[in-house]
């Protein structure tokens, strides 16, 4: 096998986990398999691994239950935050909304906090539920983003304001990859915080949608409550283990 062919094989094997990649590449080198057969072997193994992963409900929840709907809704919230910021810079718009500069700033901070809370918790759920299928969740998140970016037609705002949610969401994903569950205390605090921030904001019509405001808000708060539910299970398991030990 030439150096270039081996590099190609090593590149393909990057789709495998570290230890498995080590063993597989060593096996291929030892039996002196051809590049073509090696590539078929590696891709076959990757395909089998991915198929096994998708037998679980977790990647489905992360991709179709959280990544797609949350990215759509969070783009709406991002737009709303951008409007509030723009309004704060323009006294005429503030007056039209019957807001003072201080109350306009409060609305902006309130919305920004809510956006960060929703995006971070959604990201955490995606990261923790789809560790090895994160690529699929990322594709499912970016597809609606690309769709909306291509159709964004507001002269006074940059289209990239739709992506304000991405930074806290990526932060949540990183945290979710590191620790699959939150402790009950912080999870509960986060969920309650997000819910309490949501209710007045949504019912006062400060976010961009109209009719089913509260239900959409609840939909975005679900990841936070999912974190509470999974955190509580950790506590229960610890309690069970403690009982067994005693």
């Amino acid at each position, binding site marked *: 096998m030439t150096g270039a062919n081996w590099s190609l094989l090593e590149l393909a094997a990057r789709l495998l986990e570290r*230890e*498995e990649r*080590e*063993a*597989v*590449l*060593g*096996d*291929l*080198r*030892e*039996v002196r398999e051809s590049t073509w057969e090696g590539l*078929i*072997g*590696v891709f*076959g*193994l*990757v*395909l*089998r*691994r991915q198929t*096994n992963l998708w037998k679980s409900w977790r990647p489905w929840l992360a991709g179709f239950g959280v990544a797609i709907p949350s990215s759509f809704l969070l783009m709406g919230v991002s737009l709303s935050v951008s409007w509030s910021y723009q309004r704060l810079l323009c006294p005429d718009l503030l007056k039209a909304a019957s807001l003072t500069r201080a109350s306009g700033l409060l609305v902006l901070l309130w919305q920004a906090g809510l956006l960060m809370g929703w995006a971070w918790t959604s990201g955490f759920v995606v990261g923790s539920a789809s560790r090895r299928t994160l690529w699929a969740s990322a594709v499912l998140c970016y597809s609606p983003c690309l769709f909306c970016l291509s159709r964004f037609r507001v002269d006074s705002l940059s289209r990239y304001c739709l992506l304000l949610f991405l930074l806290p969401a990526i932060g949540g994903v990183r945290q979710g990859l590191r620790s699959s569950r939150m402790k009950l205390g912080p999870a509960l605090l986060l969920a309650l915080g997000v819910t309490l921030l949501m209710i007045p904001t949504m019912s006062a019509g400060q976010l961009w949608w109209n009719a089913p405001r509260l239900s959409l808000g609840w939909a975005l708060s679900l990841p936070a409550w999912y974190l509470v539910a999974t955190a509580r299970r950790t506590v229960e398991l610890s309690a069970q283990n403690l009982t067994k030990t005693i």
Partner: protein
Amino acid sequence: MLIMLGEFEYLLVTAAAGLGDQAYGAAIREEIEATTGRKCSIGALYTTIERLEKKGLLKTWMGEATPQRGGRAKRMVRVTPKGVQAAEDFYDAVMRVSRGAAWVAGRSGSAT
């Protein structure tokens, strides 16, 4: 609880048991290909090893790296007592179900 192995799982456990301390990915693969005359894909081998390890029939760990492997480590495999029992159960079942089969009669070492 009785764990019934599949055909390929049985081949893998038997090959690993036969290789003893030298059982690792490439060696098991060669053994299976040599005895069955069939191609054994890397994908089938490693996913089956993982499945059997989850069932507690195999134990694996990363072994030493050798120059002939380009300095890459081996994934060593050992059959657990539970794995030996499962393989024995599979073999007994095959022998029992084969009694009286047309292709068994007249062969030396046939099932009795």
